[in-house]
């Protein structure tokens, strides 16, 4: 999908299931911090946002990552305008 990068670089960050309950938000817009090149760089900035964020992202082993609605990992690059999602292992079906 094509997303137009706004003038001030920002990211959409989404949380699902119990991670959404911990952060207290399903989606938030985050100004892209300097020196953030990949998902792993972004995580400390998110955990600093609230205790709930810290709890949600405490164990990244138990968290799955998607960037622009495709699975990624901590090494997946992120840039302004991207949609980054964090969620627990899936349990549908």
């Amino acid at each position, binding site marked *: 999908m094509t997303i137009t990068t706004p003038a001030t670089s920002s990211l959409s960050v*989404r949380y*699902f*299931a*119990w991670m959404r309950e911990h952060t207290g938000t399903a989606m938030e817009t985050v100004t892209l911090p300097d020196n953030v090149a990949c998902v792993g760089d972004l995580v400390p900035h998110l955990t600093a946002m609230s205790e709930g964020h810290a709890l949600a992202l405490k164990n990244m082993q138990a968290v799955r990552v*998607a960037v622009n*609605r*495709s*699975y990624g990992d901590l090494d997946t690059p992120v840039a302004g305008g991207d949609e980054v*999602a964090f*969620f*627990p*292992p*899936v*349990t*549908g*079906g």
Partner: protein
Amino acid sequence: MAVRVQTEDFDVGAESRALQADAVGAIALFVGTVRGLSSDNGVTAMTLEHYPGMTESELERIEAEARARWPLEDVTIIHRVGRLEAGDQIVLVGAASAHRQAAFDAAQFIMDFLKTDAPFWKAEERGDETSWVDARESDDVARKRWTS
């Protein structure tokens, strides 16, 4: 592509008929349902959350992989979201082929990948308690057998 994510129920008979076509001799269907109180599950209801947009694209990717592996005439994947009660239908996967082994294998393959890759999450109600379901190791094992 015949992927649907919806709150409404579905009709297994109508979906089976829709998969029938001149070159089809075999239709394999899987219906997942909410197990009730009498099972070890002990669930009275559940709510299914998903990631709109990503869900559909993951299901379409899984369907495309199944079509690349087996000679399928048609595929249907329907997954419900929202609140469901014990006995309700959750998911339907249907695969139609000239031959039964392709239909069976494709339906299993799609279910195994749906279970590990499609972004759905279940919160189960047991009486007044609601808890998020943990992912199961056995689902990862089931998925891995297709990649060995």
